[in-house]
């Protein structure tokens, strides 16, 4: 291996690592706030990428039907509950978010021609279709189980993952899609060529991380999410409802997932089930951070990206094996160095 190949592999590794880092942050966030190990994270990656690809191919993305369907079910459940508990004031909001919003989205998709939109508008529209699925899934699958054990939540997460993969196959078919690059530019930096798309991915990931950091450090809702992760009872006593915190964290996770999918769609062909493997690699990063530390999770995820890209050069057949084997020494190291802390609830 010479320097040029090493730099090329490094560039690849960092590009993928940036995506894994985003996903690992989402996984840590969802776990810290709701104790859900969010296996379906990867499906949002695939849905984001394939929804954008559908627009560009002039097709109606199946995620629109999913949004409408999930919205109807959520509205039915919540309106029934609101009527039964005598809080009819809530109905307006429920109907607005779960019925009117998907209807507006459908109107935009059918009446305007998304295939002729500029790329940025297509991206926004794809996010607008996929991201609300996060809180809807929380409402239907996890909110009724808020007090359940981590294991039960994990089993439900696996079920949601399998259901979404199946729906992905139904909506987008078995063929993969690739979207055109955001930029065709490339730059020569000494011996390596850096592609514009790489810069986009790394830059956009960094930007999103900075925005998330500002959200958690500077806004009262971000602080409320952190408070819920630190002390659930304490947060409830401040009036921060577990449901609100759960929906907000799923919204962010869906946003991060779909955005990641849109970023990688020009680099790799995305299939309906591609997300799972990408999500798992983010998960390895999150495990390095003990599902608790954001910076260590992000660093771990970049490490996973680099490991993956270099092992694809030396032992490409064992690429995935090497990446996932990383979990074993990490777990041994963590279990030896971490003191077990009892939950104070």
């Amino acid at each position: 291996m010479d320097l040029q190949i090493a730099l090329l592999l490094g560039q690849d590794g960092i590009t993928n690592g940036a995506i894994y880092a985003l996903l690992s942050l989402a996984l840590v966030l969802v776990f810290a706030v709701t104790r859900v190990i969010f296996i379906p994270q990867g499906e949002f990656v695939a849905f984001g990428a394939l929804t954008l690809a559908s627009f560009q191919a002039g097709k109606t993305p199946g995620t629109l039907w999913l949004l409408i369907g999930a919205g109807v079910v959520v509205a039915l459940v919540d309106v029934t509950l609101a009527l039964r508990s005598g809080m009819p004031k809530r109905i307006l909001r429920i109907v607005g978010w779960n019925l009117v919003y998907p209807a507006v989205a459908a109107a935009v998709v059918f009446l305007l021609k998304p295939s002729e939109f500029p790329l940025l508008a297509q991206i926004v529209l794809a996010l607008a279709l996929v991201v609300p699925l996060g809180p809807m899934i929380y409402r239907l699958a996890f909110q009724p189980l808020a007090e359940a054990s981590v294991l039960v939540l994990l089993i439900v997460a696996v079920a949601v993952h399998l259901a979404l993969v199946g729906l992905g196959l139904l909506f987008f078919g078995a063929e993969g899609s690739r979207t055109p690059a955001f930029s065709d530019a490339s730059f020569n930096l000494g011996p390596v060529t850096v592609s514009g798309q790489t810069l986009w991915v790394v830059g956009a990931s960094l930007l999103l991380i900075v925005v998330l950091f500002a959200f958690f450090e500077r806004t009262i809702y971000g602080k409320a999410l952190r408070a819920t992760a630190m002390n659930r009872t304490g947060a409830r006593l401040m009036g921060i409802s577990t449901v609100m915190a759960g929906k907000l964290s799923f919204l962010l996770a869906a946003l991060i997932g779909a955005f990641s999918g849109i970023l990688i769609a020009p680099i790799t062909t995305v299939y309906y089930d591609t997300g799972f493997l990408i999500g798992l690699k983010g998960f390895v990063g999150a495990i390095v951070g003990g599902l608790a530390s954001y910076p260590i999770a992000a660093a771990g995820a970049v490490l996973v990206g680099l490991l993956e890209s270099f092992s694809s050069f030396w032992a490409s057949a064992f690429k995935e094996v090497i990446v996932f084997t990383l979990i074993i020494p990490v777990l041994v190291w963590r279990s030896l160095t971490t003191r077990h802390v009892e939950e104070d609830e």
Partner: protein
Amino acid sequence: MAEVKTILEVEDLCVAYGKVEALHHASIKVGEGQIVTVIGPNGAGKTTMLCSIMGLLPHTGGAIRFLGQELGDAEVEQMVALGINLVPESRALFGEMSVGDNLLLGAFMRHRAGHRDHEQTMEEVFRIFPRLKERREQHAGTLSGGERQMLALARALMAKPKLLLLDEPSLGLAPLIVREIFRVIADLKKSGVSILLVEQNARAALQVADYAYVLETGEIALEGASDQLIDDPKVVESYLGLGGKH
């Protein structure tokens, strides 16, 4: 207490953990602007009562009324929105956040309801607890026991509560700090907050309260004005000890 308007009325409250009944037809009243205390030994059901009023625990029987309105199975968040705040025995602080952020989150419900006066409220709270102002940037987890209790109280005050539920505010604190905490509680009453105080430190609680209930094995065993209970032979024997050992 006929002349005082009732802010909280708990009637025949029953709470059970599975088949074990922790509260058995307990009835108490808190008048507006009053301090009412519930004293009793460990395991009598004091904390259970507070958690049930706050909506953290479902009750199996009886009724809870706040300002005359029956609460049913209201959730914690609705109670906070109504103006009830609980300072739990564990304090439940956000240890890895600064004192200032802990206080800010105390005003979360007011913020959600559209009030943007948390900075002003925080200044008022700092006037009561000047030490918290010095520690504003410090993580809550690094505070001493007394400061933590003050922060927990201060955080609850950020919500501008009508009724404050205090669970063992003196637990584990040095006598000097206990005195300070109780002085603050007495001051809060002057500013118009109604307080339901659960305490094992019966002497301190009776000194500061207007009315008191003695809770034993899930039932109200005794009730009366604090200045009467403090001389009641049964209370003296069981909770105050002879010769004021406490």
